[in-house]
């Protein structure tokens, strides 16, 4: 390690003005803390969209024209019997009125048996006849209910507004982006709260209320994200215990923890000043910052204490600790930062904010734990009794590390390296099987047994409603919808997609127009064709309103909704490929088939982004680690010792993903970069001790053992602290947080084990005695 005059010079300057600096840092911390408290939750949907992806650009292009995507559905399903009774219809009537009254609801879009837009038609001798499914003079008598049942059967709403088995009905509404009354952007969370209160109002033992819709998802995700604050408290308590156990001193526990919390305050304050809010992903950053901060703080305490035991004055010991750790600590934190910065490769705003927040946090640690902490330490005067206690324990740990150092005996080392290599090969094989995308049913952010996902299952089981939908946009010329040639091609497109494995149903203008044409011809199915005659085609198409989302006003954009059996990456990819093939084979000047809308369309884009970033991220993060390690140590051997275990751990992390059925998604892709960036710390600390020992002229075996005695306990401690910090996420109600927590915990622990077992073993084989 280069012991530069730089750190000596900084040390002189810093400690000469230590009071001024202390005051300055404390004032800054107070300021940032003030800003941090103003941090807002910002879980906007757009932030999850991959930027610049062609699918998303199309989605954005047509978003305003087909805005009806922000829909909420409330279904009331009876536990037993049918819905045709007085009580149920009173409730449905009242629920419909409540939905009308909800803020941000597009009143014209409210649809239930009680709304006037729900009509039935019947083909009779002289054409169509029809009326409201629930007639205007409905008085909720037995006869009235029987009439409604009859009308429902004649309507198109069987399976849509009423279940096929008559055990439930629903109210649907679209939300407006801007509240028409207040002219404010829609408060999604207020809508979510409102929906939850409607559920409370109407749910009884006999009637279950199921609520789905984008607004509800966002509300549930936010609630889940905020629960994390509880985990943060747990983390602080457990970490405090660990630190106390390690340092054996109240003061030496409080100082590194306080500095790490200060780093969190800096991080939150700075990202608030940068204009960012906090979202379900970036809310995890404070944990990381706190844990990384504590681990570096503990290293500082360790060196400071060692100096004290060598008989130095507290102020001198603090100076020495500072100058000894400024470079290795700085390099380690810099590597962390670079690991986080590679995450910027994923062009998804939430992930980028996560990367920025984490980088800011780590930069803050450099100030709080490498500078502020030694300044604070320089004022401490530990008692004689404390020195003895630590010295006693040191004897115990010394024995322990002596035993552990057998890993660097030649035979043992060979065995360990072989085991490592075998694990790598095995892990690599498993790792290649990790699938891109989400592998489970329901909304991937939430747990599969969450109320929302249960509601989704209840609604999709009972109604003919698909929740995994991919929208292909058929872009044609003005009035393309009444051009037979265009519509015939659209009809073939719909049919082609319907034949793709994993597609449940397809809804498009051509299919709709064919059904309507049959309706015009007395309902006989022989006329379920696209009329060749332009006027007749226009007549059929004209009955399809833009609110269906199947056409725009001038008939130039005709979205096709493709309902999928699931949203597995493979299913989505098959559909995407089919659409692209169709465009290549049949698209021409006047008709183009482009992707994509719908939740599955966004997943398609995210999956492609993840697939594209998957390898570059690994390459960049490893290149950064290799370069920085090389710059610090100027030794290929040391770089090898540090990098090989990291590679093994990242491969094993993928293996774990495969076993736990965690897909590679925008939320799990950054984990490896975080894990590798952090894991390099151990190697750096270990080798900086090792080199110091070698400089003293120690033989390899002694130098390694000494390094392990110096840094080993701190490494174990750090691994545990970090694991606790992220491990609590495993209990989060949000699936994304749980996935990230489990993976990170695994990586942090494995990195620790590899650092104390594999690094010395590899070093043994590379270095001469």
């Amino acid at each position, binding site marked *: 390690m280069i012991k530069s005059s730089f750190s000596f010079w900084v040390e002189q300057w810093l400690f000469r003005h230590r009071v001024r600096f202390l005051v300055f840092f404390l004032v800054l911390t107070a300021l940032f803390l003030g800003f941090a408290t103003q941090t807002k939750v910002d879980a906007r949907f757009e932030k999850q969209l991959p930027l610049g992806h062609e699918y998303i650009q199309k989605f954005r292009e047509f978003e305003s024209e087909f805005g009806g995507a922000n829909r909420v559905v409330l279904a009331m399903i009876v536990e037993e019997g049918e819905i045709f009774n007085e009580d149920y219809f009173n409730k449905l009537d009242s629920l419909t009125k409540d939905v009308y009254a909800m803020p941000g609801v597009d009143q014209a879009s409210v649809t239930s048996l009680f709304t006037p837009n729900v009509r039935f038609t019947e*083909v*009779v*001798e002289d054409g169509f006849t029809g009326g409201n499914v629930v007639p205007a003079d409905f008085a909720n008598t037995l006869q009235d209910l029987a009439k409604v049942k009859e009308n429902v059967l004649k309507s198109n709403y069987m399976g849509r507004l009423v279940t*096929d088995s008559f055990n439930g009905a629903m109210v649907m509404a679209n939300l407006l982006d801007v509240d028409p009354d207040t002219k404010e952007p829609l408060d999604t969370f207020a809508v979510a709260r409102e929906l939850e209160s409607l559920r409370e109002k109407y749910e009884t033992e006999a009637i279950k209320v199921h609520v789905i819709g984008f607004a509800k998802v966002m509300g549930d995700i936010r609630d889940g994200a905020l629960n994390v604050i509880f985990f943060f408290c747990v983390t602080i308590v457990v970490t405090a215990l660990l630190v106390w156990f390690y340092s054996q001193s109240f003061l030496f526990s409080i100082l590194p923890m306080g500095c790490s919390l200060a780093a969190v305050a800096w991080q939150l304050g700075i990202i608030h000043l940068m204009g960012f809010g906090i979202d379900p992903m970036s809310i995890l950053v404070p944990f990381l910052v706190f844990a990384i901060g504590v681990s570096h703080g503990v290293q500082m305490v360790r060196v400071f204490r060692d100096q004290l035991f060598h008989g130095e004055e507290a102020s001198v010991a603090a100076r020495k600790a500072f100058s000894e750790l400024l470079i290795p600590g700085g390099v380690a934190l810099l590597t962390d930062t670079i690991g986080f910065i590679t995450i910027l490769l994923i062009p998804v705003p939430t992930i980028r904010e996560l990367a920025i927040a984490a980088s800011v946090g780590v930069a803050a640690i450099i100030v709080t734990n490498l500078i502020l902490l030694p300044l604070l330490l320089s004022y401490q005067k530990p008692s004689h009794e404390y020195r003895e206690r630590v010295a006693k324990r040191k004897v115990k740990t010394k024995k322990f590390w002596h035993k552990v150092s057998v890993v660097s005996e030649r035979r043992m080392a060979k065995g360990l390296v072989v085991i490592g290599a075998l694990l790598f090969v095995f892990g690599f094989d498993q790792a290649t099987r990790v699938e891109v995308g989400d592998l489970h049913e329901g909304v991937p952010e939430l747990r599969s047994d969450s109320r929302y996902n249960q509601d989704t299952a209840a609604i999709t089981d009972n109604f003919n409603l698909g929740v995994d939908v991919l929208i292909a946009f058929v872009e044609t010329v003005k009035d393309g919808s009444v*051009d*037979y*040639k265009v519509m*015939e091609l659209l009809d*073939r497109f719909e*049919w*082609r997609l*319907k*034949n793709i494995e994993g597609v449940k149903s397809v809804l498009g203008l051509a299919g709709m127009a064919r059904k309507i044409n049959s309706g015009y011809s*007395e*309902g*006989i*199915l*022989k*006329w*379920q*064709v696209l009329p*060749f*005659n*332009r*006027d007749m*085609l226009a007549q059929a198409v004209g009955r399809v309103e833009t609110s269906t989302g199947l056409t725009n006003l001038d008939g130039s954009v005709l979205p096709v909704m493709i309902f999928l059996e699931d949203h597995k990456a493979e299913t989505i990819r098959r559909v995407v490929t089919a659409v692209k093939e169709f465009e290549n084979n049949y698209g021409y000047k006047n008709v183009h088939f482009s992707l994509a809308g719908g939740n599955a369309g966004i997943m398609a884009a995210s999956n492609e982004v993840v697939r594209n970033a998957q390898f570059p991220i690994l390459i960049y993060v490893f290149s950064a680690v290799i370069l920085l390690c090389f710059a610090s140590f100027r030794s290929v051997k040391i770089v090898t010792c540090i990098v090989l275990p990291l590679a093994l751990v990242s491969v094993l992390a993928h293996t774990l993903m495969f076993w736990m059925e965690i897909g590679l998604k925008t939320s799990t892709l950054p984990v490896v970069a975080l894990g590798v960036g952090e894991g390099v710390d151990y190697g750096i600390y270990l080798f900086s001790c090792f080199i110091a020992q070698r400089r003293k002229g120690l033989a390899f075996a002694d130098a390694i053992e000494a390094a392990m005695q110096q840094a080993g306990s701190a490494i174990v401690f750090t691994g545990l602290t970090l694991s606790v910090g992220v491990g609590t996420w495993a209990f989060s109600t949000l699936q994304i947080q749980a996935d990230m927590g489990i993976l990170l915990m695994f990586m942090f622990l494995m990195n620790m084990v590899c650092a104390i077992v594999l690094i010395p073993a590899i070093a043994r084989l590379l270095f001469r005695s």
Partner: protein
Amino acid sequence: MKPVAEKIDGPSLIASLANHSLLLGIDGEAGRSIAVGERGHILLTENNGKNWIQKKSPTRRTLNSVCIVDQKTIWIVGHQSTVLRSQDGGENWTKIQVLDDPETSFLDVLFVDSSRGFIVGSYGKYFSTIDGGETWVENEQEDDPHFYQIASQPNGVLWMVGEFGTVWKSNNQGESWEPLDSQYDGTFFGVVPLNKSSSIILHGLQGNIFRFKKGSILKKIESPTNAILQRGVQLKDGRLVLAAGAGEMLLGARDGRLFQVLALFDKTAVPTDLWQAEDGSLLVTTDRGVFRMTLDELNKSRLDD
């Protein structure tokens, strides 16, 4: 000038879901049956409807009706004046030009023997051949209802039905037609001439069933449904089956004097045409493919009488 749509057609796509698509017409002979429908789908079975194989078709247009003339020759008609013929028992199909008008839809085809055949369609279109389909002659007439079905009685009498209560009868193999006053304005979608009597059954909109006996006027039969009745067939045992609304058919007894509902396995499938296969099973084309109901299942329903 009104923009004219471009005439486009091409071979049908062989699709895994062809047997779950909208099928509209079926005919059979011995163990073989052919079902036709949307997107030019032609499906063939050699084992009384247990397995169906999609055949290559030169058209994507919706096919409405099929008629098996003999072991080799089969005719199919459809929308946009589509006519197809196979001369090898349904393996290969070629387009036959009878009329070149994309706005004419052919709705039914019938051959009474190997040389004499008829095609009827929209707006009163009616073609006939006496040379096995080598040449077709358009028979102009004043009325222009959609003709939905042409059928022959065992005694050679021909019946043609369609919109506006149209019921035409011909005693001379279609040389001349005699309109009957049906005293009904609605559409008749089909006619089922009964085998062992001179009666015929007419059916159409709103579950309407009429029975017509030679020399007497039409008699309205009480119907258990108000769904449209698209097609009908008489079984070998004399009972009738009519295709009704979603998931339902009507089973007729006593020469079509009494009807009761016969449920289809798929409650949402709308039946469109029927054929009793050689082994007695009933093959039903629907908007969700073709269904097979065995004779045993059919006979269970008889017990409910």
